[in-house]
């Protein structure tokens, strides 16, 4: 009686034209979805959706200036008060008004009419722009301009640096007209145009960051092509025959079409920042195909019938293949537990892609092997007649490695593993959450963007903000909550509490500050008039004063267009975790002191870079162990079922978890914190890394019988056969992923590539050393069973016999 998997294999081969047609039609169906495939970074989707900080951000997306680019003009050899620099600022201000999608009402620099100073006159108040209708060019004009700046406190803090060597130009874009790529290209060209021997021009702001990411993402296709090319070359180098090259390529291509087509039909955009993982899947598919094909050669050399050989290979390889891919799928899908929309979309895309590896990597590959002409050099390919060159060296090394796992050396190895493991676990548990970078973690520290952020932070309050939002309750139409005394006075009190806290911010700003300035000006200019009359009438009067003759957009950094919601902005010197923790703790204390809930508004903490960074850290903190725990549980159940033993599950999980701890310990020793990257890599590392163990354990079970139950010979034989395949698989992964580290200008991708490579390498080493060691130490009974789902054992001599005998053999 044929087992179920062999019956599937037999049916498939007997109906191979029908099955091939089904594959062709399915592939065509998925290919139809390719036209809808969209590679797109949706930045808000990178944030955890259920985090309270992110909810504040989504409810008030305008606070924290997400649509504003900031250009800083820095005079290298003096201050900005010279004709050349001021003329440059004037011209950049005019030029940025030509940027595609810019909001002409929201351009602010010392050259715009919005940067004003005021003087009390006998008739009232005379409010004038800091700069006249041209950039100051004579010494007298420059001196006059400087005197005007002295009368404009806001300009001195937010537009001109304390040392007067730098000035900012801010431009806000209209979201529905903003094409990040186009806008970035334009604004970045201004940076290049206006930088010279005396001036540096720096560009920062969220649209600039997005622009950089898009710019670098376009490089991604090149890297993709390079790595794919390298994979194909290594394949050609290893296989050296048409079947061996065509089969993995076609199989992987079909899986890719299904993977992309599926999300195309779902119209779910693909996150380009995570494209390393699909490449891992391609590499995974390649290596799987290589092992499948090698097994096919082995069988073919016995049975000499390619259809029969394909059928047997399919039957033999089905269970271990499915189990290996099953763990990949679990690892990828469990990432979706982290409530980050980009991760969910990614899990959907890559998880299903991994699922598609089952039909393509088990059935399609068998069909291809049955259809394609058999290679003539099969005997050479399977090493009959002895190994040569590299293969001999590899086998020798693996034999030495195997030696570590049994007999007397096993004790020493075990002691080393226990000690190293204990150290790794201890160190890993010390790791901190969060991996702060001054600027963006998506880009390298030395990138132009992060350099600009550092420079701007150095000269101005900077970009590390925490926004505490005052949210109107919407009690009535036209109810301008930001014009009410309770709101504004609470803002002032909150600012005062935070400014006097143990770790005060560099600067604070709220609508109340503008109102006080308005109050001063319209009361005659004396600073003693700055305090607001604590009544609705007094506060509203000040609000009318500053809004007179202005667009509401001019204050969009502190209040919304309708003046119902506002924010208190706090600027911090950096975004290191200690600063973030202190900032949030102080803010929480202050908010509690002024009370969260008021009659017409409530206070929400908060948004801005500080809060959003913390939101990401919260996800890592909350979900890291949950994901790893669940992954262990599911894999334990799956593997225990396949090997019909819980011990097998534990034996497989110990090395991958140890690998995980080693990676985290290394990161901790290198002062790198846990972040979203490491969360993903950990999940994929366990899911994909366990494949090595599965291959090896299956082989051990097979060899155990062939080697007369001698553990030493069993382990040596397993390592010198499957161990070689594992080495090849690891190499393929290495080739597929490592180039991203060197080629990608996006640090996020590069980091993920490096972490994945390291995880895979450590997993490989531990699979080759620790797994055999565990088998030797525990000597589990399941190894001796012949009814394992994943058993690769087959008596090939039976296939030279007649069909009935064959059935008995299976």
């Amino acid at each position, binding site marked *: 009686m044929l087992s179920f998997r062999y019956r599937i294999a037999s049916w498939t081969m007997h109906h191979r034209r029908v099955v091939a047609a089904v594959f062709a039609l399915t592939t065509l169906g998925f290919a139809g979805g390719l036209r809808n495939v969209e590679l797109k970074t949706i930045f808000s989707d990178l944030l955890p959706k259920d985090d309270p900080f992110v909810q504040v951000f989504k409810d008030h997306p305008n606070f924290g200036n997400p649509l504003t680019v900031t250009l800083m003009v820095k005079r290298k050899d003096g201050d900005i008060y010279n004709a050349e620099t001021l003329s440059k600022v004037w011209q950049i201000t*005019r030029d940025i*008004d*030509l940027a*595609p999608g810019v*909001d*002409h*009402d929201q351009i602010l620099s010392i050259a*715009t*009419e919005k940067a004003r100073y005021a003087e009390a*006159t006998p*008739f*009232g*108040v*005379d*409010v*004038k*722009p800091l700069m006249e*209708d*041209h950039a100051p060019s004579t010494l007298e004009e420059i001196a006059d301009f400087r005197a005007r700046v002295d009368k404009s406190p806001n300009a001195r803090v937010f537009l001109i640096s304390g040392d007067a060597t730098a000035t900012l130009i801010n431009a806000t874009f*209209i979201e*529905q*007209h903003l094409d990040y790529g186009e806008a970035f290209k334009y604004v970045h060209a201004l940076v290049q145009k206006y930088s010279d021997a005396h001036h540096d021009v720096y560009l920062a702001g969220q649209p600039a960051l997005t622009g950089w990411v898009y710019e670098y993402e376009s490089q991604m296709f090149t890297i993709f092509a390079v790595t794919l090319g390298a994979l194909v070359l290594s394949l050609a180098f290893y296989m050296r025959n048409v079947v061996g090259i065509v089969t993995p390529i076609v199989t992987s291509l079909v899986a890719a079409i299904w993977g992309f087509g599926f999300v195309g039909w779902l119209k779910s955009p693909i996150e380009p920042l995570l494209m390393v993982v699909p490449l891992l899947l391609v590499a995974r598919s390649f290596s799987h195909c290589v092992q499948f094909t090698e097994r096919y050669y082995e069988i073919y050399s016995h049975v000499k019938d390619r259809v029969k050989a394909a059928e047997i290979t399919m039957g033999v390889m089905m269970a271990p293949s499915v189990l290996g891919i099953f763990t990949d799928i679990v690892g990828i899908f469990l990432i979706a537990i982290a409530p980050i929309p980009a991760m969910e979309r990614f899990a959907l895309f890559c998880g299903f892609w991994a699922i598609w590896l089952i039909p393509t990597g088990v059935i399609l590959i068998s069909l291809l092997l049955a259809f394609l002409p058999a290679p003539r050099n099969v005997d050479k390919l399977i090493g009959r007649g002895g190994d040569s060159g590299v293969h001999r060296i590899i086998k020798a090394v693996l034999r030495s490695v195997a030696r570590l796992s049994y007999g007397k050396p096993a004790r020493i190895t075990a002691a080393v593993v226990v000690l190293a493991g204990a150290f790794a676990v201890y160190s890993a548990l010390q790791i901190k959450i969060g991996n702060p970078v001054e600027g963006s973690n998506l880009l390298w520290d030395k990138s132009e963007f992060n350099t600009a952020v550092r420079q701007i932070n150095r000269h101005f309050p900077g970009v590390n903000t925490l926004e505490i939002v005052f949210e109107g309750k919407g009690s009535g*139409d*036209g109810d*301008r909550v930001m*014009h009410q005394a309770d709101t504004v006075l609470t803002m002032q009190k909150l600012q005062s509490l935070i400014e006097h806290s143990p770790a005060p911010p560099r600067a604070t700003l709220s609508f109340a500050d503008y109102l006080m300035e308005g109050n001063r000006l*319209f*009361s005659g200019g004396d600073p003693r008039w700055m305090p607001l009359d604590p009544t609705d*009438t*007094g506060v*509203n*009067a000040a*609000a*009318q*004063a500053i*809004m*007179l*003759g*202005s*667009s*509401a957009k001019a204050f969009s950094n502190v209040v919304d*267009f*309708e*003046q119902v919601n506002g924010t208190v902005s706090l600027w911090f010197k950096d975004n290191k975790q200690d600063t973030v923790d202190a900032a949030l703790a102080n803010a929480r204390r202050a908010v509690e002191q002024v009370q969260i809930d008021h009659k017409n508004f409530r206070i929400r903490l908060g948004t801005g870079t500080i809060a959003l960074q913390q939101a990401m850290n919260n996800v890592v903190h909350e979900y890291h162990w949950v994901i790893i725990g669940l992954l262990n549980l599911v894999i334990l159940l799956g593997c225990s079922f396949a090997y019909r033993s819980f011990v097998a599950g534990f034996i497989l999980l110990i090395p991958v978890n140890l690998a995980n701890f080693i990676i985290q310990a290394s990161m901790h020793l290198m002062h790198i914190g846990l972040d979203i990257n490491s969360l993903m890599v950990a999940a994929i590392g366990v899911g994909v890394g366990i494949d090595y163990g599965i291959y090896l354990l299956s082989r051990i079970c097979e060899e155990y019988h062939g080697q007369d139950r001698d553990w030493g010979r069993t382990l040596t034989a397993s390592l010198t056969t499957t161990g070689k395949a594992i080495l090849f698989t690891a190499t393929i992964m290495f080739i597929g992923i490592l180039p991203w580290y060197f080629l990608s200008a996006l640090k996020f991708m590069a980091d993920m590539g490096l972490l994945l490579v390291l995880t895979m390498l450590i997993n490989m080493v531990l699979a080759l050393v620790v797994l055999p060691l565990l088998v030797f130490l525990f000597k589990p009974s399941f190894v001796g069973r012949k009814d394992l789902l994943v058993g690769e054992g087959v008596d090939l001599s039976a296939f030279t016999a007649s069909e009935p005998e064959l059935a008995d053999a299976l």
Partner: protein
Amino acid sequence: MRIKKYDFNYGRRALMEKAAKGVFATGVLTPLWPLIARGDNLAKAYPDELVSIEAYTKGKVKPGDAITADNVDVVKDLLDPIAYQQVKTMGRRIIIVPPTTDITKMFNHDFLEATLKNKGKSKFDATGNVVYEDGGPWRGGTPFPDPKDGKEALFNITLSWGRHDYSLYAIRDWDIQPSGDEAYHYDFVWAELNTTARADGQVFNGMKDMLRLQSVWFTSPQDTAGTSFLSQWYYDQRKFPELYGYLPAFKRVRQFPTNQRFEPLVPGITFFLSDAWSSGDPLLTWGNFKTIGRQPMLGAISQNWKGSLPNWERPRHGGGKGKTFLDTYMELIPECIVVEAEPVGYPRAPVSKKRVWIDVRNNMYVSSITYDRRGEVWKSFETGSGQFVDGNAVFKDTSGHPAWSWTHVLVHDIQSNRMSILAHVREVKGGYQTTFNMDGDVVNKFFTVQAMQRLGAA
């Protein structure tokens, strides 16, 4: 019955030829102004397809029909690009009405009389300003009934915005967000007093160096009530007007930079001073005037005054919440001169040019568009006008004739998709009513800094 003497495209071809050859006499079949002088039917100056929307669209649209997203492409060439987008994508609906053929319904009485009386007596002085033939200030009416170029066409508007020597408009404003919700709602009063270029031919109070006094004061909502602005325009169109703002809470007058004309007066409004009457700035602070064509156009030039409705307020429709557009009635205007100008006197202007469509029969603009410095369409300033007669409801001007004035303005910033609706109404909060009768000492009542302070205190 009109005899169809000409082929279908004759009218449009003739307008294009006129524009191409620089022929500026208005009318196609016969010059327009002799007809006007005789009080003849204006339609005689144009072939059928420029007078009848039915003929123009070959029967696809006729008076009484509504232009909606379904049929707007038929009349796409007759709308400014923003109005087309409003109908095509935002649910705007425009009702088509029969054409106006009586010139007296396109002017207020005194202004038409002055135009006819002073025809041919205008000239440019050495400074580029328009003066009467004796070199003194212009004496009323349009100085260039047959404008030869864009500059003359715009002078026709600039010298007397509202065409009454004195006007006080009660205005209700709604400022609509991209979502269709109302963000702001104001009641305010806009008053204009021409000191020169008056239809009565006089110089008011001896102020011959001034063109007009103009003020705006807000009466609602409560937090804005009393906020006011005063603008004093010089006759010399090279000079910027003086601009003052007044805040009642502080009892302080704020002087604005004179060239700050591309900002709203109060938050929420998309309307800049520069936009007013499509000619909100002194004319010679703009330059590079060009006539870029002549064309028929759909315009809201009659039947938009609904005196029979409470407070003259028309229903609204369209946009996200059904409140973005006033119900509007448009008719086919046979000939508009299309003029462009650039803000050469404003080094900081966010605008690169404006394009204005002017009905050649009364030389009043129908719509204008401003372009940003990238040359992209930015804002429209669409104005409805007409005689204030609605069935039995009639509103008269100082001469005792039915008044003619503007009825509404739609200021649409298409880039940020914010709309301001300004409706000319009977009365606004504070009790101010629309009037063209100069009752008492209006200068000291509305047009001085002290007057602003009094208005704020009230």
